[in-house]
C-alpha cells in the first residue's frame, strides 16, 4: 500500500522534475553558447501556455490515433520516470520493473512516432521512418547494457534490487566490475540517442523535416508530446545515475529519513548526469544524418555493451 502511495505521489513529482530538468538543460545549453538563456522556469510557462491553446487536427489525419498518441506517450514516459523515484522512496519494487521502465520509454517513443505518422504530413512520415531506424539503433545496446547489472545482482531485473546490490557492494556499478563499467559507458552513450537530442535528433531535425513527427501537433497535444520527451530524458538520466553511479556513502540517506533522503539526493545529482549526456552532446555536436547516427549506435555503444555482456558472462 505504501508503495502505491509512493508511486501516486511520484507521478506529479516526475512531471515537475522533467520540466525542471529541461529548464536546467536549456539554461546550461544557453550559457555554453554565450547566451543568457531563458529562466529555469521557462518550460513550465511553455507547458501551461500550450495547455491553454487549441489543438488543431489536420483533416488528413486519423483523429483517434493522432489525439491519443501523445497522451499515451506522456503517460508512459512519466510513469517510467515515476517508478524509479517511487521505488527509491518506498524502498521496494516489483520483480522485473526495470524491464517495464525500459519498455515504457520505448512505448513513449513509438507512440509519438505513430501519432506523427497518422497526421498525414510527409514530414511526419519521414520522421516516422527515421525514428524507426533510430529505435533499432539504440534499443539494442541500451537493453544489452542492463544485462550485466542483472547478472551481478543475482539475476534480478528489479530496479530496487540492482540499486540495493550496489549498497551491498559498498560501491557503485560503474566502478565495481570491468563489465559493469563498460555497461555504464554503453548506457551513457545511448542516452543522447534515446532522449532524441542533437546529434541524434534526426527524427525531428527542425532544419530538415520541421520537427518531423511533431509537425502537425499544437496546443495540449504538443505540450504532452514535449512532456513525453522531457520525461524520457529525466527518466534516462535518473536511471543512469541510480543504476550505475549509486555510490552508497554518497546516496544512502540518513537512516531516520530512509528512502526519501536518498531519492532527494539522487534527484539533486541527476542534473549532472543530464548535463553530461544530454546538454554537452547537444552543445558541441552537429546533427548527424540517419545513416551516420545509426552507424554510431551500432559501433560504439553496441561494442561497449557487447563487451560488457561477454565480460560479465565470463565473470568479470
Amino acid at each position: 500500500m505504501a508503495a502505491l502511495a509512493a508511486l501516486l505521489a511520484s507521478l506529479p513529482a516526475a512531471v515537475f522534475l522533467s520540466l525542471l530538468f529541461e529548464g536546467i538543460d536549456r539554461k546550461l545549453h544557453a550559457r555554453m553558447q554565450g547566451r543568457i538563456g531563458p529562466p529555469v522556469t521557462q518550460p513550465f510557462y511553455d507547458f501551461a501556455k500550450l495547455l491553454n491553446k487549441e489543438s488543431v487536427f489536420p483533416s488528413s489525419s486519423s483523429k483517434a490515433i493522432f489525439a491519443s498518441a501523445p497522451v499515451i506517450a506522456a503517460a508512459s514516459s512519466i510513469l517510467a520516470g515515476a517508478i524509479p523515484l517511487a521505488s527509491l522512496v518506498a524502498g521496494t519494487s516489483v520483480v522485473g520493473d526495470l524491464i517495464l521502465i525500459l519498455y515504457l520509454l520505448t512505448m513513449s517513443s513509438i507512440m509519438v512516432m505513430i501519432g506523427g505518422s497518422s497526421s498525414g504530413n510527409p514530414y511526419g512520415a519521414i520522421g516516422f521512418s527515421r525514428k524507426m531506424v533510430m529505435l533499432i539503433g539504440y534499443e539494442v545496446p541500451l537493453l544489452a547494457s542492463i544485462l550485466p547489472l542483472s547478472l551481478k545482482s543475482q539475476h534480478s531485473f528489479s530496479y530496487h534490487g540492482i540499486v540495493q546490490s550496489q549498497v551491498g557492494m559498498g560501491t557503485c556499478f560503474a566502478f565495481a566490475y570491468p563489465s559493469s563499467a563498460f555497461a555504464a559507458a554503453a548506457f551513457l552513450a545511448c542516452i543522447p540517442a534515446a532522449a532524441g537530442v542533437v546529434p541524434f535528433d534526426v527524427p525531428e531535425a527542425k532544419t530538415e523535416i520541421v520537427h518531423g513527427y511533431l509537425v502537425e501537433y499544437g496546443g495540449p497535444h504538443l505540450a504532452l508530446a514535449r512532456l513525453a520527451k522531457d520525461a524520457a530524458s529525466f527518466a534516462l538520466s535518473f536511471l543512469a545515475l541510480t543504476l550505475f553511479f549509486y555510490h552508497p556513502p554518497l546516496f544512502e540517506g540518513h537512516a531516520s529519513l530512509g528512502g526519501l533522503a536518498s531519492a532527494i539526493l539522487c534527484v539533486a545529482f541527476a542534473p549532472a548526469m543530464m548535463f553530461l549526456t544530454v546538454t554537452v552532446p547537444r552543445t558541441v555536436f552537429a546533427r548527424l544524418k540517419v545513416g551516420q547516427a545509426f552507424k554510431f549506435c551500432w559501433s560504439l555503444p553496441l561494442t561497449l555493451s557487447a563487451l560488457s555482456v561477454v565480460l560479465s558472462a565470463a565473470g568479470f
Partner: protein
Amino acid sequence: MGRGLRAAFRALLRKPVRVRYLTEAGEMVPVPERYRGKITYDKGACIGCLLCIRTCPSGAISTTEEKKVEFSVFKCTFCGQCAEICPKKAVKLGSDFELVVYEKEGMVVR
C-alpha cells in the same frame, strides 16, 4: 569535438554576451555619434527650399501651409539624405531609436 567542447566550456565559465538596452541608471544606452535615429527639425532655421523633398527616397517629407516641411517618421528609412542636403542644417538625424508611440501624431516631426 575537442575544440567545440573547449569553446563551449570557455563560454560557460565566462559572462554571457549581453547587449544592453537600458543603462544601469535606467536610461537608453548611448549610441554612436553618427547614429541615424529619429529626425529632429529646427523649423526656425528652415528656409523652405524643399531640397529634402526632392531627394527623399521614401516620400516621408511633405510641405505645410506655412511653406515649411514636416516629416513622417513612419515612412522614413533613416538614410539621412535630408540632413545631408539641407543647406541650413535644419534637419538632423538624432539619437532617439525608441520609435514607439501611442498616438500616430507622435511620429510626425514638425
